[in-house]
């Protein structure tokens, strides 16, 4: 479980997050949705410590992340996996080396054990015989799946996904979404997904928070989001031609 309490963040006088509080539950896919520039990426980066919050507290299962020093954060981060928008695979390493990287850095496993783990997580994300390929040789969807494999290689307790569907076709997006949900339930981890894809919201949104101009505007789930009377949220949810026609 991850909890953000009254967090605020500004850049050069521009308030990006305003008194945001939310709870992300274990074993569920928690979605942060909002328009581009609404502050959802900043919220996620504050949660993982890539940005320091100006005010407020962040708790990882009652451990106060905001008061931790560099070394304590380093230790906690071994329990965190993150899927970045572009995958963020290391260009100089092949698929196997990318997935094996955290195992090399933080475990004392033998090469055979590490290779077994790499093959297991690659199989888990439905990738076979790609170990020797370089990131530049992979498609967008494969890159995301390798990034998920790397993120789960260390059996994380917390999984963060920053716009996992960006740049992917709807079918591949669906595969990635379901993979994230399956992994969340299978390993009982706290997953936070940052997205503005309504397909993701309706298929994996166990819990959904809507951010507007840096403020938490609405909380609910994939069922309640379709029946809300919140005008700003309705504008976001039914903002496309397809969704507005479906509503009619």
């Amino acid at each position, binding site marked *: 479980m991850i909890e953000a309490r009254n967090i605020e963040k500004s850049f050069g006088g521009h308030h990006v997050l305003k008194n945001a509080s939310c709870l992300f539950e274990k074993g569920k896919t928690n979605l942060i949705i909002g328009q581009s520039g609404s502050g959802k990426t900043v919220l996620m980066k504050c949660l993982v410590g890539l940005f320091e919050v100006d005010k407020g507290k962040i708790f990882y299962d009652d451990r106060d992340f905001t008061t931790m020093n560099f070394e304590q954060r380093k230790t906690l981060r071994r329990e965190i996996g993150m899927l970045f928008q572009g995958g*963020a695979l290391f260009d100089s390493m092949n698929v196997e080396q990318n997935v094996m990287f955290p195992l090399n850095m933080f475990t004392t496993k033998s090469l055979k054990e590490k290779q077994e783990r790499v093959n297991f997580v690659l199989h888990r994300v439905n990738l076979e015989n790609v170990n020797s390929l370089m990131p530049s040789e992979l498609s967008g969807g494969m890159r995301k799946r390798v990034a998920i494999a790397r993120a789960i290689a260390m059996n994380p307790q917390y999984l963060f996904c920053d716009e996992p569907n960006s740049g992917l076709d709807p079918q591949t997006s669906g595969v990635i979404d379901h993979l994230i949900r399956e992994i969340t339930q299978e390993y009982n981890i706290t997953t936070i997904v940052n997205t503005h894809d309504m397909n993701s919201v309706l298929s994996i949104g166990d819990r959904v928070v809507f951010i507007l101009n840096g403020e938490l505007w609405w909380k609910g789930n994939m069922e309640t989001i379709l029946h809300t009377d919140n005008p700003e949220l309705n504008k976001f949810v039914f903002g496309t031609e397809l969704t507005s026609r479906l509503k009619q």
Partner: protein
Amino acid sequence: MLMKRVFTRPQKRVIFTNQLLTEINNLGVDSLGIVAFISMFMGAVVAIQTAYNIDNPLIPMSMVGFTTRQSIILEFSPTVISLILAGKVGSRIASEIGTMRVTEQIDALEIMGVNSANYLIFPKIIASILINPVLIIFSMWLGILGGWIAMTASGLVSTNDFVRGIRVDFEGYTIFYALTKTVVFAFIISSVSGFFGYETKGGALEVGQASTKAVVFSSVIIILFNLILTQLLLT
């Protein structure tokens, strides 16, 4: 602040050693060709210019070998080659780390709990400090060889005169002076370039700007330290 994070103990010695060897190859061995080419030709030019300027019959032709040796060892190899390495190696370091920054690879390292500054910059600094003196000694040798080839091929100075000039009044301290400068310059090139790469924000355009800044700042600092070190070590 960044340097404080760079100069910490590597998280895993085996990984650091592998990275160090990779960087020695990338930053040093890959530079051998350009260093050899420039050193040979510059040595030849220095020798030809010296020979061209000696028109007094009282000055022995061995002076060409002496002047070539001194120019190459004291200034050309440690300073000019370091400036060339600032361009080649500095831009490589800054663009490599800068690209990792803008494609979130550095964020990925941080999220995993890796000290990214130490992981990315420290091996490059140590590799530069270890390999640059080797490159500079190689450059000195080739520079003098280039001078000898130019003199014997053109017939301006005989091999005997040139070699006598190279050997006359040799002081080992000049090598110490040159290598001290080299080590300082190697540190400047790798740390300044690492800093500009690591602090890149934005996209491809900013990576290019970081790379340019790394080369310019490294070169300026090298020139300043060249004066300071020469003042300290030779006077």
